[in-house]
């Protein structure tokens, strides 16, 4: 018994001190281990992560048309641009852009923000399918959430007659690239594949 009682005169550690620290240390480790499941349960669940793909029927689009589709619970713009819009977008010097990156999930992260890199020319093509080159160049698919704070930009407005975000005044061009305003990045392009001549699969 006497060994277990700390004696302030001796000033040494006692067995009881060791047991104290060991018990408290074990409790801390156990507590942390228990805490993790209670934190992790708030992360996206398996069924949320497994949200699959969205197929877009392109036959319904004429040049100049735009539809908004839902992909992974978020709206996306699908726009079949006119030749004028494509030409205007290709005419831009990438070096002059606020964001010079393509932000395209189908390309390398380092790809520059040329209109070719932004358009559906970057989309994969399913085996055995051949897609009209004009369609691929004219088709633009981007996220419909402004990269500033997530609002949905208005179509056919702003300095570039393309997209204008009403929340804080970000102007996007007909390639979905930020040109003026607080948004830091171009509208991202989702991963996509032509699974037939008239069907584009997002995801």
């Amino acid at each position, binding site marked *: *018994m006497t060994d277990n009682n700390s004696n302030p005169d001796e000033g040494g550690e006692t067995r009881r001190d060791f047991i104290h620290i060991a018990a408290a240390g074990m409790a801390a480790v156990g507590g942390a281990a228990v805490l993790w499941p209670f934190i*992790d349960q708030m992360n996206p*669940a*398996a069924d949320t992560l497994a949200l699959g793909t969205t197929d877009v029927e392109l036959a319904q689009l004429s040049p100049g048309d735009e539809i908004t589709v839902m992909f992974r619970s978020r709206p996306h713009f699908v726009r079949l641009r006119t030749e004028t819009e494509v030409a205007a977008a290709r005419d831009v010097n990438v070096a002059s852009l606020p964001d010079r990156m393509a932000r395209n999930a189908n390309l390398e992260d380092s790809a520059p923000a040329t209109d070719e890199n932004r358009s559906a020319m970057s989309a994969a093509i399913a085996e055995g399918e051949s897609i009209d080159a004009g369609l691929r160049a004219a088709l633009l698919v981007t996220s419909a959430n402004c990269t500033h704070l997530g609002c949905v930009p208005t179509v056919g407005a702003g300095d570039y007659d393309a997209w204008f975000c009403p929340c804080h005044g970000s102007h996007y061009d007909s390639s979905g690239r930020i040109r003026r305003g607080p948004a830091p990045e171009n509208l991202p392009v989702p991963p996509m594949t032509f699974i037939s001549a008239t069907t584009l699969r997002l995801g």
Partner: protein
Amino acid sequence: MSGNSTYEPKTAFTRWLDTRLPIVRLASDSFIDFPTPRNLNYWYTFGGILTVCLMVQIITGIVLAMHYVPNIDYAFASVQRIDRDVNFGWLIRSIHAVGASMFFLAVYMHIFRGLYYGSYKAPREILWILGVVIYLLMMAAAFLGYVLPWGQMSFWGAMVITNLFGALPLVGEPVTQWLWGGFTVGNETLNRFFSLHYLIPFLIAGVVGLHVWALHVPGNNNPTGISVKTSADTLPFHPYYTVKDGFAIVVFLLIFAGFVFYAPDVLGHADNYIEANALVTPAMIVPEWYLLPFYAILRAVPDKLGGVILMFAAIGVLFVLPWLDTSKVRSMRYRPMARWFFGFFVVACLGLGWAGAELPDTKVPVLGAIGVDFLLLGRVLTLYYFAYFLVILPVLGFVEKPTARPASIEDAVLHGDKPAKAGSAGAAPVAQPAE
């Protein structure tokens, strides 16, 4: 907590705080320096264990509510999604479901402890009554929670329990419809049950606060039932009882974890993994194990209203127990007759649980030879249950001769539970918590 505080703030900040909100003083007086009888055994650790149970249920419950959908079209699927898709959902739901059973296991130990050592007697009647209130709230919370997964047992359990109120004369039907929010158990019922299931644990936490307050005024009872007389009878709560409670909690959590990881559904009913169907009643409709004794009492009475009244009376009688037991001796350690009757009472409660789990017409093993079925067993044990409180304990106080008791708690610790011998008081203090 009764005015003799030993807390002395040591820093400038704690001195400043203590004159404004003496919260550190309250914690210190309640859980650190609180003088506790030095002879508490492991039956006295269930209060701490129950506190842990309540916290576990509240924390896991709040988390489950983040994923659960209280709608009859989605509830069952949302519970399946928790089990399959939500990160660690299988673990958190198992903890919550098994936790309900563990909570009741601990509360029954706690209640039987109180019955044996006379913890309900003066000056602890309010403490006991608050405990019975907590027990009632626990049963309500458990029943409401069981309905939420919207499986077959959920639905038919809700149907049977709510229909009990239909037995009330005159008001039966309107009261039942008021509970349902419709013409039967349905979406309205599920929504309100979810709301109340979320509310009640916080009511329990509030009453637990009162329960602890009511404990700290007279202080703990102890296995001898003798009141604390001097400081030699007590030990500071910390470290002696924090460590003892802590060890008991660890052992309890090991058993808890055993169920969670190896048999999460063994205490439940397989039929609750079939989605609720208002057209088909499961062949065997029984409550969870911890409510079975009351189910047996309900079925023991051939009259619908009579069964309901008797079932509620089985809990109601606990409220007046402090005035039914006439013995001046608290602990049954010194009550040779009461100990036997108490033992039979525990057996009767277990037997009632058994009777509640079986069909009434089934013959009891062994006793079936002389024609005893579970209905008769339930009736006999129900009779004993009420006789114990209403006849045996009141009469025993007058006819029983208690055995000799030690002079003090200190004396019981140092010289066993035998009565004090002359001139043996005042032995050297030993820094050894007594079992």
